[in-house]
């Protein structure tokens, strides 16, 4: 069993490593960059929310 799990554990370790490696954004956080990223977060949240809503409505 462990033999089958081992590659996935390795994969998970890689994901965690990538996550740590790129944890801090390296771009200079000017007000323009901050505002753009905030707007982008809102945009993505609204769009994902709408997709979930559409999914729920379709399933119903």
């Amino acid at each position, binding site marked *: 069993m462990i033999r089958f799990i081992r590659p996935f554990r390795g994969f998970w370790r*890689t994901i965690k490593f990538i996550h740590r490696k790129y*944890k801090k*954004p390296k*771009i200079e956080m000017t007000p*323009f960059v901050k505002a753009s990223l905030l707007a*982008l977060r809102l945009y*993505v949240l609204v*769009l994902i929310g709408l997709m979930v809503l559409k999914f729920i409505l379709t399933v119903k």
Partner: protein
Amino acid sequence: MNLLEKIFYRLRKYSKALRMFALVAGPGIIVMVADNDAGGITTYTTTGAQYGNHLLWFLILLGPVAYLVQEMTVRLGAVTKRGHAEAIFDSFGSFWGWFSLFDLVLTDWLTMITEFIGMTAAMSIFGIPAWMTVIACWILMGSMIMTGSYWTWEKIVLVISIGNLIYIPAAFVVHPSVPDIIKNSVIPNLPPGGLTNDLFFLLMANIGTTIAPWMLFFQQSSVVDKGLQEKDIKFGQWDTAIGSFLTVIVAVLLIIVCGKLLFGQPIDSAAQAARMIMPMNSYVGTIIAIGLFDAGFLGAICISLASSWAFGEVFGWAHSLNHKIKEAPWFYAYYFFDLCLAGTVVLIPKAPLVLITLFVQVIATTLLPPALVFLILLLNDKKTMGALVNTRLQNFLNISIVVVIVVLSTMYGLSTLFPNLL
């Protein structure tokens, strides 16, 4: 220096520049021609059949737009020597990095399915069953990439790109009205009936086929894999400009052909257009079918590579076409996995292919605005770009393009999800 010497000096200078260009050219032409993929060909045939030559000006306008967006990836790739996925991870952190990678992978895979739908539909016109087309494509696409040399791969793909120009003779065969084409190319106008929901959908589909997220990832990674330097940027820009010219030419000519032969008839796909044209003009029908296959083939190769490069950059795998399979096993494994998965879906009986096509548009809509915003921000980061940051004019043009695309694509996404909302 006498006249003859001056002429000789000039000719030598130009021939040297031309040789340099021949060496650097490739990524821009390939990405732009591959942009006219199976979905793109379907969009153009539908545009021509539904609105004739009325929207030619819009397609011509999209050429410079595509150039301005893609040109940024040339500079970014040449300066940073990093692909787009890695650049996003590094500059914006892991949250946006994972978001972009996941979105790219999903969009690419779904778009690949539409490429296989296009290829199998095109070959079915010649009586070739879908399973045979899919297997033949797997073998061809696999053998192309196993050369272990970016240069060889690029030359093969450039030859395939020439196949996309097959629509040029078709436009001459149908004898379209030249004054009408010139008028509709130069003067912006809306078709009779004005801006309807159908027209808005088609305009957005045309934008979506001209500027796609995978193109940003592909060209930047391609520039890095090819090893372009900062001194090569000028040639890379020419390469992209020629590519955007070719993509517009193909789109315009296909619209002209379908506007002439199918005007007013409802068209759902390019394969259907080819079938309908066959009895009228078998030569043009065959050209559309072959062109559709070529477009799907080229699109599938480039889209699959865009994902493989992105994964390689982020996961730290060897990810160059200059590597042999043994040297970059995960890079090639992902490429084949992507191809096989997309091709298999098309072979599943009663697979929801129409739903998949619709889903591609919605998902692509979510990735395009973030990808464009990241591009603009990266191109304005002095720490990253140094002297090659966007100029004021470039910023004005690019930010205008991004704002218009964000607004339109949001409306498009909303109207696809909730058709009665807008």
